[in-house]
Protein backbone atom coordinates (compact mmCIF):
# COMPACT_ATOMS: atom_id res chain seq x y z
CA UNK A 1 0.00 0.00 0.00
CA UNK A 2 1.32 3.43 -0.87
CA UNK A 3 0.91 6.40 1.41
CA UNK A 4 -1.46 9.25 0.62
CA UNK A 5 1.46 11.63 0.70
CA UNK A 6 5.09 10.71 0.87
CA UNK A 7 7.77 13.34 1.12
CA UNK A 8 11.32 12.15 0.42
CA UNK A 9 14.42 14.19 1.20
CA UNK A 10 12.65 17.41 0.44
CA UNK A 11 14.94 20.41 0.79
CA UNK A 12 15.05 24.06 -0.14
CA UNK A 13 17.95 26.46 -0.35
CA UNK A 14 17.99 30.12 -1.26
CA UNK A 15 20.82 31.70 -3.16
CA UNK A 16 21.74 34.87 -1.28
CA UNK A 17 20.91 37.92 -3.34
CA UNK A 18 24.38 39.32 -3.92
CA UNK A 19 25.87 35.84 -3.93
CA UNK A 20 28.54 34.54 -6.28
CA UNK A 21 28.14 31.01 -7.51
CA UNK A 22 30.59 29.84 -4.86
CA UNK A 23 29.08 31.63 -1.84
CA UNK A 24 27.18 29.20 0.35
CA UNK A 25 23.43 29.16 -0.17
CA UNK A 26 21.14 29.79 2.75
CA UNK A 27 19.19 26.75 3.77
CA UNK A 28 15.45 27.18 4.38
CA UNK A 29 14.76 23.47 4.93
CA UNK A 30 17.28 20.69 5.24
CA UNK A 31 16.25 17.50 3.43
CA UNK A 32 13.43 15.86 5.34
CA UNK A 33 11.07 12.94 4.83
CA UNK A 34 7.66 12.13 6.23
CA UNK A 35 4.38 10.48 5.29
CA UNK A 36 0.72 11.35 5.67
CA UNK A 37 -2.20 8.92 5.49
CA UNK A 38 -5.78 9.53 4.42
CA UNK A 39 -7.92 11.31 7.02
CA UNK A 40 -4.99 12.38 9.18
CA UNK A 41 -4.17 15.80 10.55
CA UNK A 42 -0.49 16.70 10.58
CA UNK A 43 0.55 19.75 12.60
CA UNK A 44 3.72 21.60 11.62
CA UNK A 45 5.27 23.60 14.44
CA UNK A 46 8.40 25.63 15.06
CA UNK A 47 9.51 29.14 15.91
CA UNK A 48 9.46 31.97 13.36
CA UNK A 49 11.81 31.48 10.47
CA UNK A 50 12.09 27.74 11.05
CA UNK A 51 10.77 26.99 7.56
CA UNK A 52 7.14 26.10 8.23
CA UNK A 53 5.69 28.27 5.48
CA UNK A 54 8.37 27.18 3.05
CA UNK A 55 7.43 23.54 3.62
CA UNK A 56 3.69 24.26 3.40
CA UNK A 57 4.12 26.21 0.18
CA UNK A 58 6.17 23.51 -1.49
CA UNK A 59 3.56 20.88 -0.66
CA UNK A 60 0.80 23.26 -1.71
CA UNK A 61 2.50 23.74 -5.06
CA UNK A 62 3.05 27.47 -4.62
CA UNK A 63 6.82 27.09 -4.27
CA UNK A 64 9.30 24.57 -5.61
CA UNK A 65 11.82 22.45 -3.75
CA UNK A 66 15.50 22.41 -4.66
CA UNK A 67 15.89 18.72 -3.83
CA UNK A 68 13.85 15.63 -3.08
CA UNK A 69 10.46 14.50 -4.27
CA UNK A 70 6.81 14.34 -3.30
CA UNK A 71 4.61 11.32 -4.01
CA UNK A 72 0.84 11.46 -3.95
CA UNK A 73 -0.81 8.02 -3.80
CA UNK A 74 2.53 6.58 -4.87
CA UNK A 75 2.75 8.83 -7.92
CA UNK A 76 5.54 11.34 -8.25
CA UNK A 77 4.43 14.96 -8.57
CA UNK A 78 6.05 17.03 -11.31
CA UNK A 79 5.42 20.56 -12.35
CA UNK A 80 3.96 19.11 -15.55
CA UNK A 81 1.20 17.24 -13.77
CA UNK A 82 0.21 20.41 -11.97
CA UNK A 83 -3.55 20.01 -12.61
CA UNK A 84 -3.47 16.76 -10.67
CA UNK A 85 -1.69 18.48 -7.83
CA UNK A 86 -4.07 21.37 -7.94
CA UNK A 87 -7.10 19.10 -7.63
CA UNK A 88 -5.71 16.99 -4.85
CA UNK A 89 -3.77 19.42 -2.69
CA UNK A 90 -5.22 22.85 -1.93
CA UNK A 91 -4.00 25.67 0.29
CA UNK A 92 -5.65 28.10 2.73
CA UNK A 93 -3.70 31.16 3.78
CA UNK A 94 -3.64 33.13 7.02
CA UNK A 95 -4.76 36.29 5.39
CA UNK A 96 -8.32 35.52 4.32
CA UNK A 97 -9.04 39.23 3.93
CA UNK A 98 -6.59 39.64 1.11
CA UNK A 99 -6.63 36.26 -0.51
CA UNK A 100 -10.15 36.84 -1.84
CA UNK A 101 -10.78 38.95 -4.91
CA UNK A 102 -12.65 42.10 -3.84
CA UNK A 103 -14.22 42.65 -7.26
CA UNK A 104 -15.73 39.22 -7.72
CA UNK A 105 -18.79 37.89 -5.95
CA UNK A 106 -18.46 34.79 -3.82
CA UNK A 107 -20.19 32.51 -6.31
CA UNK A 108 -17.83 33.50 -9.12
CA UNK A 109 -14.76 33.05 -6.92
CA UNK A 110 -15.86 29.55 -6.03
CA UNK A 111 -16.71 28.75 -9.63
CA UNK A 112 -13.28 29.74 -10.90
CA UNK A 113 -11.35 26.62 -9.87
CA UNK A 114 -14.14 24.49 -11.37
CA UNK A 115 -13.84 26.35 -14.68
CA UNK A 116 -10.10 25.84 -14.89
CA UNK A 117 -9.82 22.32 -13.56
CA UNK A 118 -12.98 20.40 -14.49
CA UNK A 119 -15.26 19.74 -17.42
CA UNK A 120 -18.45 20.42 -15.47
CA UNK A 121 -21.37 22.18 -17.19
CA UNK A 122 -22.67 25.53 -15.94
CA UNK A 123 -25.57 23.85 -14.15
CA UNK A 124 -23.29 21.29 -12.52
CA UNK A 125 -20.90 24.02 -11.45
CA UNK A 126 -23.72 25.96 -9.86
CA UNK A 127 -24.85 22.89 -7.99
CA UNK A 128 -21.35 22.20 -6.74
CA UNK A 129 -20.95 25.81 -5.53
CA UNK A 130 -24.25 25.65 -3.67
CA UNK A 131 -23.36 22.35 -2.07
CA UNK A 132 -19.96 23.67 -1.00
CA UNK A 133 -21.44 26.84 0.47
CA UNK A 134 -23.77 24.66 2.51
CA UNK A 135 -20.90 22.45 3.60
CA UNK A 136 -19.08 25.40 5.14
CA UNK A 137 -22.22 26.57 6.89
CA UNK A 138 -23.16 29.38 4.53
CA UNK A 139 -26.25 29.99 2.44
CA UNK A 140 -27.11 29.84 -1.25
CA UNK A 141 -27.78 33.59 -1.03
CA UNK A 142 -24.15 34.27 -0.29
CA UNK A 143 -23.44 33.57 -3.97
CA UNK A 144 -24.27 37.21 -4.72
CA UNK A 145 -22.24 38.68 -1.86
CA UNK A 146 -18.94 40.49 -2.26
CA UNK A 147 -16.11 39.92 0.24
CA UNK A 148 -16.55 43.30 1.96
CA UNK A 149 -20.10 42.30 2.91
CA UNK A 150 -18.86 39.33 4.95
CA UNK A 151 -17.44 39.07 8.46
CA UNK A 152 -13.91 37.78 8.91
CA UNK A 153 -15.20 34.38 9.98
CA UNK A 154 -17.39 34.15 6.89
CA UNK A 155 -14.45 35.14 4.69
CA UNK A 156 -12.42 32.35 6.26
CA UNK A 157 -15.29 29.98 5.45
CA UNK A 158 -15.24 31.11 1.83
CA UNK A 159 -11.49 30.42 1.72
CA UNK A 160 -12.14 26.93 3.05
CA UNK A 161 -14.96 26.48 0.53
CA UNK A 162 -12.59 27.47 -2.26
CA UNK A 163 -10.05 24.98 -0.99
CA UNK A 164 -12.47 22.05 -0.80
CA UNK A 165 -14.60 22.70 -3.88
CA UNK A 166 -12.43 20.45 -6.03
CA UNK A 167 -12.80 17.76 -3.37
CA UNK A 168 -9.09 17.54 -2.65
CA UNK A 169 -7.45 14.82 -0.61
CA UNK A 170 -5.20 17.21 1.28
CA UNK A 171 -5.75 20.76 2.51
CA UNK A 172 -2.68 22.72 3.61
CA UNK A 173 -3.49 25.56 6.01
CA UNK A 174 -0.74 28.03 6.90
CA UNK A 175 -1.71 29.80 10.14
CA UNK A 176 -5.30 29.90 8.92
CA UNK A 177 -6.73 30.07 12.44
CA UNK A 178 -4.62 32.68 14.19
CA UNK A 179 -6.41 35.86 13.16
CA UNK A 180 -9.84 34.58 14.18
CA UNK A 181 -11.84 35.43 17.28
CA UNK A 182 -12.21 32.60 19.80
CA UNK A 183 -15.84 31.84 18.95
CA UNK A 184 -15.19 31.91 15.21
CA UNK A 185 -11.99 29.89 15.59
CA UNK A 186 -13.90 27.17 17.44
CA UNK A 187 -16.55 27.19 14.68
CA UNK A 188 -13.88 26.81 11.99
CA UNK A 189 -12.12 23.98 13.85
CA UNK A 190 -15.47 22.18 14.12
CA UNK A 191 -16.05 22.75 10.42
CA UNK A 192 -12.66 21.31 9.53
CA UNK A 193 -13.30 18.26 11.69
CA UNK A 194 -16.73 17.77 10.09
CA UNK A 195 -15.29 18.02 6.59
CA UNK A 196 -12.68 15.50 7.53
CA UNK A 197 -15.34 13.09 8.65
CA UNK A 198 -17.63 13.65 5.65
CA UNK A 199 -15.07 13.90 2.87
CA UNK A 200 -12.06 12.12 4.35
CA UNK A 201 -9.83 15.17 3.90
CA UNK A 202 -6.32 15.17 5.38
CA UNK A 203 -4.90 18.40 6.73
CA UNK A 204 -1.43 19.81 7.03
CA UNK A 205 -1.80 22.52 9.61
CA UNK A 206 0.88 25.11 10.31
CA UNK A 207 0.18 26.57 13.73
CA UNK A 208 1.70 28.19 16.80
CA UNK A 209 -0.94 26.97 19.19
CA UNK A 210 -0.01 23.93 21.30
CA UNK A 211 -3.65 23.67 22.40
CA UNK A 212 -4.99 23.32 18.87
CA UNK A 213 -2.28 20.81 18.06
CA UNK A 214 -3.01 18.75 21.11
CA UNK A 215 -6.71 18.75 20.38
CA UNK A 216 -6.86 17.91 16.68
CA UNK A 217 -3.51 16.70 15.35
CA UNK A 218 -2.80 13.02 14.72
CA UNK A 219 0.86 13.65 14.03
CA UNK A 220 3.28 16.45 14.82
CA UNK A 221 6.27 17.61 12.78
CA UNK A 222 8.62 20.04 14.48
CA UNK A 223 11.09 22.20 12.60
CA UNK A 224 14.04 23.89 14.21
CA UNK A 225 16.06 26.20 12.00
CA UNK A 226 15.03 24.30 8.91
CA UNK A 227 15.74 20.91 10.41
CA UNK A 228 13.07 18.37 11.23
CA UNK A 229 13.73 17.51 14.87
CA UNK A 230 10.58 15.53 15.56
CA UNK A 231 7.96 13.67 13.57
CA UNK A 232 5.62 11.25 15.24
CA UNK A 233 2.16 10.59 16.58
CA UNK A 234 0.82 13.42 18.72
CA UNK A 235 0.81 11.58 22.04
CA UNK A 236 4.34 10.33 21.49
CA UNK A 237 5.67 13.81 20.77
CA UNK A 238 3.71 15.18 23.71
CA UNK A 239 5.23 12.61 26.01
CA UNK A 240 8.73 13.31 24.74
CA UNK A 241 10.37 15.10 27.62
CA UNK A 242 13.92 14.49 26.40
CA UNK A 243 14.28 17.28 23.87
CA UNK A 244 14.37 20.66 25.57
CA UNK A 245 13.19 22.45 22.44
CA UNK A 246 10.05 20.33 22.20
CA UNK A 247 9.55 20.96 25.90
CA UNK A 248 9.70 24.70 25.38
CA UNK A 249 7.41 24.64 22.39
CA UNK A 250 4.71 22.44 23.83
CA UNK A 251 4.82 21.45 27.44
CA UNK A 252 5.36 24.81 29.07
CA UNK A 253 2.24 26.15 27.39
CA UNK A 254 0.09 23.14 27.97
CA UNK A 255 0.89 23.32 31.67
CA UNK A 256 -0.12 26.99 31.90
CA UNK A 257 -3.78 26.45 32.33
CA UNK A 258 -6.49 28.27 34.08
CA UNK A 259 -8.44 26.01 36.34
CA UNK A 260 -12.01 26.11 35.25
CA UNK A 261 -14.68 23.93 36.66
CA UNK A 262 -16.81 22.97 33.67
CA UNK A 263 -19.22 20.48 35.15
CA UNK A 264 -21.76 23.21 35.82
CA UNK A 265 -24.71 23.86 33.52
CA UNK A 266 -23.60 23.16 29.96
CA UNK A 267 -26.18 24.85 27.84
CA UNK A 268 -23.79 26.29 25.31
CA UNK A 269 -24.28 24.84 21.85
CA UNK A 270 -21.61 23.74 19.43
Amino acid at each position, binding site marked *: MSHLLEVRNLGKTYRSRKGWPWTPKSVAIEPLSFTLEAGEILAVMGETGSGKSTLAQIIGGVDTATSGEILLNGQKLHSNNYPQLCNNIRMIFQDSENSLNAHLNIGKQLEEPLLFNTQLTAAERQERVNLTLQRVGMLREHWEFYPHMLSSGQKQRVCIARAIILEPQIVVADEALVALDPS*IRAQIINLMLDLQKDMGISYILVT*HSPQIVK*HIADKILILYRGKMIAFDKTDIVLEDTQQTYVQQLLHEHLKQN*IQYNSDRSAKIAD
Partner: protein
Amino acid sequence: MQLLDIRNLTVEMQTAHGIVRVLDKVNLQLTEGEIHSIVGESGSGKSLLAKAIMGFINPNWQVTADRLWWNGQDLLAMTPKQRRKITGRDMAMIFQDPNAYLDPNSTVEQQIVEAIPQGDVRGTFMRRRVDRKTRVKRLLHRVGIRDHESIMESYPFELSQGIAQKVSIAIAIAHRPRLLIADEPTTAMEPSTRLQIHRLLARLAVSQKMSVVLISQDVGSILPETKRLTLLYCGQLMETGPAHDILSEPAHPYTDSMLRMSLQTQQELPHKARLPTLPGSIPTLRHMPIGCRLGPRCPYAQKTCVKAPRATHDRQRVYHCHFPLLDSSS
Protein backbone atom coordinates in the same frame (compact mmCIF):
# COMPACT_ATOMS: atom_id res chain seq x y z
CA MET B 1 -5.38 52.98 46.76
CA GLN B 2 -7.94 53.56 44.03
CA LEU B 3 -6.05 54.89 41.02
CA LEU B 4 -8.64 54.76 38.30
CA ASP B 5 -12.37 54.86 38.79
CA ILE B 6 -14.66 54.70 35.77
CA ARG B 7 -18.44 54.56 36.09
CA ASN B 8 -20.82 54.23 33.17
CA LEU B 9 -18.45 55.40 30.49
CA THR B 10 -20.29 55.80 27.20
CA VAL B 11 -18.78 56.70 23.84
CA GLU B 12 -21.00 57.52 20.90
CA MET B 13 -19.94 58.24 17.39
CA GLN B 14 -21.64 59.71 14.39
CA THR B 15 -21.71 57.40 11.38
CA ALA B 16 -23.42 57.54 8.00
CA HIS B 17 -26.18 55.45 9.57
CA GLY B 18 -26.83 57.55 12.64
CA ILE B 19 -25.34 57.62 16.11
CA VAL B 20 -23.76 54.38 17.32
CA ARG B 21 -22.76 53.56 20.86
CA VAL B 22 -19.35 51.98 20.66
CA LEU B 23 -18.97 51.82 24.43
CA ASP B 24 -22.10 51.42 26.48
CA LYS B 25 -21.94 52.12 30.24
CA VAL B 26 -18.61 50.54 31.01
CA ASN B 27 -17.18 50.36 34.53
CA LEU B 28 -13.56 49.89 35.50
CA GLN B 29 -11.79 50.19 38.84
CA LEU B 30 -8.07 49.92 39.24
CA THR B 31 -5.92 50.09 42.35
CA GLU B 32 -2.22 50.75 42.56
CA GLY B 33 0.11 47.97 41.42
CA GLU B 34 -2.65 45.62 40.29
CA ILE B 35 -3.04 43.82 37.00
CA HIS B 36 -6.38 44.15 35.26
CA SER B 37 -7.21 42.12 32.16
CA ILE B 38 -9.75 43.29 29.61
CA VAL B 39 -11.01 40.47 27.44
CA GLY B 40 -13.31 40.48 24.43
CA GLU B 41 -13.54 39.47 20.81
CA SER B 42 -12.83 41.88 17.97
CA GLY B 43 -14.93 45.02 17.87
CA SER B 44 -15.80 44.78 21.56
CA GLY B 45 -14.30 48.21 22.28
CA LYS B 46 -11.18 47.15 24.19
CA SER B 47 -8.83 49.49 22.35
CA LEU B 48 -11.43 52.24 22.52
CA LEU B 49 -11.68 51.90 26.29
CA ALA B 50 -7.90 52.15 26.55
CA LYS B 51 -7.89 55.25 24.37
CA ALA B 52 -10.68 56.79 26.44
CA ILE B 53 -8.53 56.37 29.56
CA MET B 54 -5.55 57.95 27.81
CA GLY B 55 -7.72 60.73 26.37
CA PHE B 56 -6.93 59.82 22.78
CA ILE B 57 -10.55 59.72 21.62
CA ASN B 58 -11.56 61.51 18.44
CA PRO B 59 -12.84 64.93 19.66
CA ASN B 60 -15.92 64.62 17.45
CA TRP B 61 -17.16 61.64 19.41
CA GLN B 62 -19.38 62.03 22.42
CA VAL B 63 -17.75 60.82 25.65
CA THR B 64 -19.88 60.81 28.79
CA ALA B 65 -19.42 59.18 32.17
CA ASP B 66 -20.82 59.37 35.67
CA ARG B 67 -17.24 59.27 36.80
CA LEU B 68 -13.85 59.25 35.12
CA TRP B 69 -11.39 59.79 37.92
CA TRP B 70 -7.65 59.42 37.99
CA ASN B 71 -6.07 59.47 41.40
CA GLY B 72 -9.08 61.32 42.81
CA GLN B 73 -9.11 63.94 40.05
CA ASP B 74 -11.94 64.28 37.55
CA LEU B 75 -10.44 63.82 34.10
CA LEU B 76 -13.55 64.95 32.25
CA ALA B 77 -13.58 68.33 34.03
CA MET B 78 -10.05 69.14 32.90
CA THR B 79 -8.94 71.24 29.97
CA PRO B 80 -7.27 69.25 27.19
CA LYS B 81 -3.93 70.75 28.23
CA GLN B 82 -4.25 69.66 31.88
CA ARG B 83 -5.37 66.24 30.75
CA ARG B 84 -2.41 65.82 28.41
CA LYS B 85 -0.08 66.75 31.22
CA ILE B 86 -1.49 64.06 33.50
CA THR B 87 -1.54 61.44 30.76
CA GLY B 88 2.04 62.28 29.77
CA ARG B 89 3.28 62.10 33.34
CA ASP B 90 1.37 59.14 34.77
CA MET B 91 0.30 56.87 31.91
CA ALA B 92 1.76 54.96 29.01
CA MET B 93 0.32 52.69 26.38
CA ILE B 94 1.68 49.97 24.16
CA PHE B 95 -0.37 49.81 21.02
CA GLN B 96 -1.73 46.72 19.35
CA ASP B 97 0.53 47.22 16.35
CA PRO B 98 4.14 47.78 17.49
CA ASN B 99 5.11 48.97 14.02
CA ALA B 100 2.72 51.88 14.34
CA TYR B 101 4.35 52.79 17.63
CA LEU B 102 8.05 52.54 16.82
CA ASP B 103 9.61 55.11 14.52
CA PRO B 104 11.04 53.25 11.51
CA ASN B 105 13.66 55.95 10.88
CA SER B 106 15.49 56.04 14.19
CA THR B 107 17.46 53.50 16.13
CA VAL B 108 16.24 51.88 19.31
CA GLU B 109 18.71 53.97 21.32
CA GLN B 110 17.49 57.27 19.86
CA GLN B 111 13.89 56.36 20.57
CA ILE B 112 14.51 55.37 24.17
CA VAL B 113 16.64 58.47 24.81
CA GLU B 114 13.80 60.59 23.55
CA ALA B 115 11.43 58.96 26.03
CA ILE B 116 13.66 59.63 29.07
CA PRO B 117 12.42 62.77 30.87
CA GLN B 118 14.73 65.77 30.45
CA GLY B 119 14.96 66.40 34.18
CA ASP B 120 16.39 62.94 34.82
CA VAL B 121 19.80 63.65 33.32
CA ARG B 122 21.93 66.46 34.76
CA GLY B 123 25.48 67.72 34.70
CA THR B 124 27.94 68.61 31.96
CA PHE B 125 27.39 67.69 28.34
CA MET B 126 29.64 64.62 28.55
CA ARG B 127 28.12 63.57 31.84
CA ARG B 128 24.64 63.71 30.31
CA ARG B 129 25.72 61.63 27.34
CA VAL B 130 27.18 58.90 29.48
CA ASP B 131 24.26 59.06 31.86
CA ARG B 132 21.73 58.67 29.05
CA LYS B 133 23.55 55.67 27.68
CA THR B 134 23.55 53.89 31.03
CA ARG B 135 19.87 54.66 31.44
CA VAL B 136 19.07 53.17 28.05
CA LYS B 137 21.05 50.06 28.93
CA ARG B 138 19.31 49.76 32.26
CA LEU B 139 15.90 50.07 30.64
CA LEU B 140 16.75 47.39 28.10
CA HIS B 141 17.93 45.08 30.86
CA ARG B 142 14.77 45.76 32.77
CA VAL B 143 12.63 44.51 29.87
CA GLY B 144 14.77 41.42 29.56
CA ILE B 145 17.05 42.39 26.68
CA ARG B 146 20.57 41.32 27.57
CA ASP B 147 22.14 41.87 24.21
CA HIS B 148 21.85 45.66 24.55
CA GLU B 149 24.81 46.70 22.37
CA SER B 150 23.46 45.34 19.10
CA ILE B 151 19.80 46.08 19.88
CA MET B 152 20.54 49.74 20.63
CA GLU B 153 21.91 50.26 17.16
CA SER B 154 19.09 48.39 15.40
CA TYR B 155 16.22 49.89 13.48
CA PRO B 156 12.70 48.55 14.23
CA PHE B 157 12.45 46.48 11.03
CA GLU B 158 15.51 44.53 12.08
CA LEU B 159 13.86 43.31 15.27
CA SER B 160 11.78 40.18 15.76
CA GLN B 161 8.21 40.65 16.97
CA GLY B 162 9.06 39.79 20.56
CA ILE B 163 12.07 42.11 20.77
CA ALA B 164 10.08 44.93 19.12
CA GLN B 165 7.38 44.44 21.74
CA LYS B 166 9.98 44.60 24.54
CA VAL B 167 11.52 47.74 23.09
CA SER B 168 8.13 49.42 23.03
CA ILE B 169 7.69 48.45 26.68
CA ALA B 170 11.10 49.96 27.47
CA ILE B 171 10.03 53.21 25.79
CA ALA B 172 6.70 53.15 27.60
CA ILE B 173 8.24 52.74 31.06
CA ALA B 174 11.09 55.23 30.51
CA HIS B 175 9.23 57.96 32.36
CA ARG B 176 8.13 55.62 35.16
CA PRO B 177 4.36 55.78 34.58
CA ARG B 178 1.95 54.65 37.25
CA LEU B 179 -0.29 52.99 34.70
CA LEU B 180 0.74 50.92 31.71
CA ILE B 181 -1.89 49.84 29.20
CA ALA B 182 -0.75 46.99 26.97
CA ASP B 183 -2.92 46.23 23.95
CA GLU B 184 -1.95 42.74 22.90
CA PRO B 185 -1.47 42.22 19.16
CA THR B 186 -4.38 40.27 17.69
CA THR B 187 -2.26 38.48 15.14
CA ALA B 188 -0.61 35.52 16.73
CA MET B 189 2.33 36.14 18.91
CA GLU B 190 4.34 32.99 19.33
CA PRO B 191 3.27 31.44 22.62
CA SER B 192 6.80 31.64 23.99
CA THR B 193 7.03 35.34 23.10
CA ARG B 194 3.70 36.04 24.73
CA LEU B 195 4.79 34.17 27.85
CA GLN B 196 7.95 36.26 28.06
CA ILE B 197 6.04 39.53 27.67
CA HIS B 198 3.51 38.45 30.28
CA ARG B 199 6.21 37.54 32.78
CA LEU B 200 7.87 40.86 32.13
CA LEU B 201 4.66 42.81 32.74
CA ALA B 202 3.97 40.88 35.94
CA ARG B 203 7.51 41.58 37.15
CA LEU B 204 7.26 45.29 36.32
CA ALA B 205 3.94 45.58 38.13
CA VAL B 206 5.65 44.41 41.31
CA SER B 207 9.07 46.07 40.98
CA GLN B 208 7.84 49.45 39.71
CA LYS B 209 4.58 49.42 41.69
CA MET B 210 2.92 50.03 38.37
CA SER B 211 -0.68 49.20 37.52
CA VAL B 212 -1.08 47.23 34.33
CA VAL B 213 -4.14 46.99 32.09
CA LEU B 214 -3.67 44.07 29.74
CA ILE B 215 -5.96 43.75 26.75
CA SER B 216 -6.43 40.35 25.15
CA GLN B 217 -8.85 38.35 23.03
CA ASP B 218 -8.85 35.04 24.80
CA VAL B 219 -9.66 34.45 28.48
CA GLY B 220 -7.64 31.28 28.35
CA SER B 221 -4.41 33.13 27.76
CA ILE B 222 -4.61 35.98 30.26
CA LEU B 223 -1.81 36.60 32.67
CA PRO B 224 -2.09 34.27 35.69
CA GLU B 225 -1.28 37.23 37.99
CA THR B 226 -4.45 39.03 36.85
CA LYS B 227 -6.20 40.48 39.87
CA ARG B 228 -9.32 41.75 38.19
CA LEU B 229 -11.01 40.81 34.98
CA THR B 230 -13.42 42.64 32.67
CA LEU B 231 -15.31 41.09 29.77
CA LEU B 232 -16.64 43.26 26.98
CA TYR B 233 -18.84 42.31 24.04
CA CYS B 234 -19.78 44.76 21.28
CA GLY B 235 -19.10 47.74 23.52
CA GLN B 236 -21.17 46.46 26.44
CA LEU B 237 -19.82 45.43 29.79
CA MET B 238 -20.70 41.80 30.39
CA GLU B 239 -18.95 41.10 33.67
CA THR B 240 -16.23 42.65 35.82
CA GLY B 241 -14.73 41.74 39.17
CA PRO B 242 -12.01 39.73 40.92
CA ALA B 243 -10.47 37.38 38.35
CA HIS B 244 -10.42 34.38 40.62
CA ASP B 245 -14.14 34.59 41.40
CA ILE B 246 -15.13 35.12 37.79
CA LEU B 247 -12.96 32.30 36.48
CA SER B 248 -14.10 29.78 39.04
CA GLU B 249 -17.75 30.75 38.87
CA PRO B 250 -18.78 32.96 35.93
CA ALA B 251 -22.06 34.80 36.41
CA HIS B 252 -22.50 35.88 32.83
CA PRO B 253 -23.32 33.57 29.89
CA TYR B 254 -20.64 35.31 27.80
CA THR B 255 -17.94 34.67 30.39
CA ASP B 256 -19.06 31.08 30.60
CA SER B 257 -18.91 30.63 26.81
CA MET B 258 -15.55 32.34 26.49
CA LEU B 259 -14.16 29.94 29.07
CA ARG B 260 -15.66 26.92 27.37
CA MET B 261 -14.44 28.02 23.94
CA SER B 262 -10.91 28.53 25.05
CA LEU B 263 -8.85 25.45 24.36
CA GLN B 264 -6.70 26.34 27.35
CA THR B 265 -9.54 25.52 29.69
CA GLN B 266 -10.79 22.47 27.83
CA GLN B 267 -8.29 19.98 29.13
CA GLU B 268 -10.46 16.91 29.44
CA LEU B 269 -12.15 17.20 26.05
CA PRO B 270 -11.69 13.99 24.01
CA HIS B 271 -9.29 14.19 21.05
CA LYS B 272 -10.97 15.73 17.99
CA ALA B 273 -14.26 16.31 19.81
CA ARG B 274 -16.32 19.21 18.54
CA LEU B 275 -15.59 22.39 20.47
CA PRO B 276 -18.31 24.31 22.26
CA THR B 277 -18.79 27.73 20.71
CA LEU B 278 -21.29 30.53 20.25
CA PRO B 279 -23.37 30.30 17.06
CA GLY B 280 -23.40 33.11 14.50
CA SER B 281 -20.93 35.91 14.07
CA ILE B 282 -20.05 39.19 15.73
CA PRO B 283 -22.48 41.89 14.53
CA THR B 284 -21.20 44.94 12.71
CA LEU B 285 -21.66 48.47 14.03
CA ARG B 286 -24.55 49.02 11.64
CA HIS B 287 -26.44 45.98 12.81
CA MET B 288 -26.11 46.12 16.58
CA PRO B 289 -28.93 44.18 18.26
CA ILE B 290 -31.04 46.25 20.63
CA GLY B 291 -31.02 45.50 24.33
CA CYS B 292 -28.40 42.96 25.32
CA ARG B 293 -26.12 42.78 22.29
CA LEU B 294 -25.25 39.14 22.96
CA GLY B 295 -28.94 38.28 22.50
CA PRO B 296 -28.91 36.65 19.02
CA ARG B 297 -25.97 34.43 19.99
CA CYS B 298 -26.81 33.75 23.63
CA PRO B 299 -28.00 30.24 24.54
CA TYR B 300 -29.93 31.65 27.53
CA ALA B 301 -31.67 34.52 25.72
CA GLN B 302 -35.37 35.11 26.20
CA LYS B 303 -37.83 37.78 25.13
CA THR B 304 -36.87 40.18 27.92
CA CYS B 305 -33.33 40.38 26.55
CA VAL B 306 -34.37 42.98 23.96
CA LYS B 307 -34.36 45.36 26.92
CA ALA B 308 -30.87 46.23 28.13
CA PRO B 309 -30.26 44.44 31.43
CA ARG B 310 -29.46 46.57 34.49
CA ALA B 311 -26.25 46.20 36.42
CA THR B 312 -26.26 43.59 39.16
CA HIS B 313 -23.80 44.32 41.97
CA ASP B 314 -22.86 41.14 43.71
CA ARG B 315 -20.16 41.57 46.33
CA GLN B 316 -17.18 42.85 44.33
CA ARG B 317 -18.66 41.87 41.00
CA VAL B 318 -20.78 43.71 38.47
CA TYR B 319 -22.61 42.02 35.61
CA HIS B 320 -25.32 42.83 33.10
CA CYS B 321 -27.68 39.95 32.39
CA HIS B 322 -31.37 39.14 32.83
CA PHE B 323 -30.62 35.47 33.43
CA PRO B 324 -27.28 35.19 35.20
CA LEU B 325 -25.81 31.78 35.92
CA LEU B 326 -25.20 32.78 39.53
CA ASP B 327 -27.93 33.09 42.06
CA SER B 328 -27.06 36.48 43.53
CA SER B 329 -29.35 35.99 46.54
CA SER B 330 -27.38 32.99 47.78
